[in-house]
């Protein structure tokens, strides 16, 4: 059975440069991003990782969501930015899947603590990874049909649809 998915702006994220959006399954008051937050917000073992992730969302929201700050995860993107180089890595690899559409628009999905090299092999994030790929497939279709598009001048996301069936 198909489920309808709504696209809505995250009104609480009122930043200077970019807008964030998320997806809501039909009859669910919480977005997929809300569910991610609910699950991880009070986890002591990822307190620093979670704080940094939120700080990146805030920073990029205020200064622009440039492509170079996003990981590429097949059709989707992810935060936080890549830190695998040199001598630093977080103890826990928190991943938030998303779709970065312009310097001023990002759609946030779900995520989790990645425990394997490949997201597909991780029991924590595989579901979110595949869900993100599905979301991106449908969102790209809406973009092709011009139901969702980026205003060339403002780089803002214009949504001319309620959502899509998944």
């Amino acid at each position, binding site marked *: 059975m198909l489920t309808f998915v709504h696209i809505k702006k*995250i009104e*609480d*994220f009122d930043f200077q440069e970019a807008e964030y959006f998320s997806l809501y399954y039909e009859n669910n008051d*919480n977005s997929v*991003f*809300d569910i991610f*937050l*609910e699950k991880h*917000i009070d986890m002591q073992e990822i307190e*620093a990782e*979670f*704080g*940094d992730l*939120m*700080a*990146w969302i*805030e*920073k990029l929201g205020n*200064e622009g969501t440039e492509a*170079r*700050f996003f*990981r590429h995860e097949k059709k989707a993107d992810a935060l*936080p*930015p*890549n*830190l*695998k*180089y*040199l*001598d*630093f890595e977080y103890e826990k690899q928190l991943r938030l899947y998303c779709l970065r559409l312009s310097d001023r628009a990002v759609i946030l999905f779900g995520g989790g603590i990645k425990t394997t090299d490949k997201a597909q092999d991780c029991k924590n994030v595989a579901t979110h990874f595949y869900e993100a790929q599905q979301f991106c497939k449908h969102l790209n279709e809406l973009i092709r049909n011009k139901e969702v598009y980026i205003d060339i001048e403002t780089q803002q996301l214009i949504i001319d649809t309620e959502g899509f069936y998944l």
Partner: protein
Amino acid sequence: MSITKKALGKIKPENRKFVGKSKALADQVNEVLNLKGMNQKDASIKLGKYQSEISKWLSGQHNPTLRTITSLEVLLGTDLLITPLQAKAKFEKKEYVYMTVHAQPKIMAAGQYIPTKSPNRRYQVISETRGIKVA
């Protein structure tokens, strides 16, 4: 309170500081490459680094050591980070050039800039009797 607001409330000053400095460093590397007219591929060839590594420099989140930053500065031929003391010494340095004006001394009043063809130098009249400074 909504979960999104609560999540923003979880950002500690050290999270903001860390992310701010990480992004600033990534932006600085990006700016240097742009000024040098280099893209990631050019940079990787010139610097003898893999393109993926250059990409990671530009992506922002990292905690490089002072030695790593210094290596990057040497490779790029410019400072990436300077301390407030160094910044003060670098940017507060004034170079005074004294000149004698033989005619119409009141044409250039104090505070005015003297036109120059050099894009890196601007001469400002600091007083009609003391001379000009490089602004």
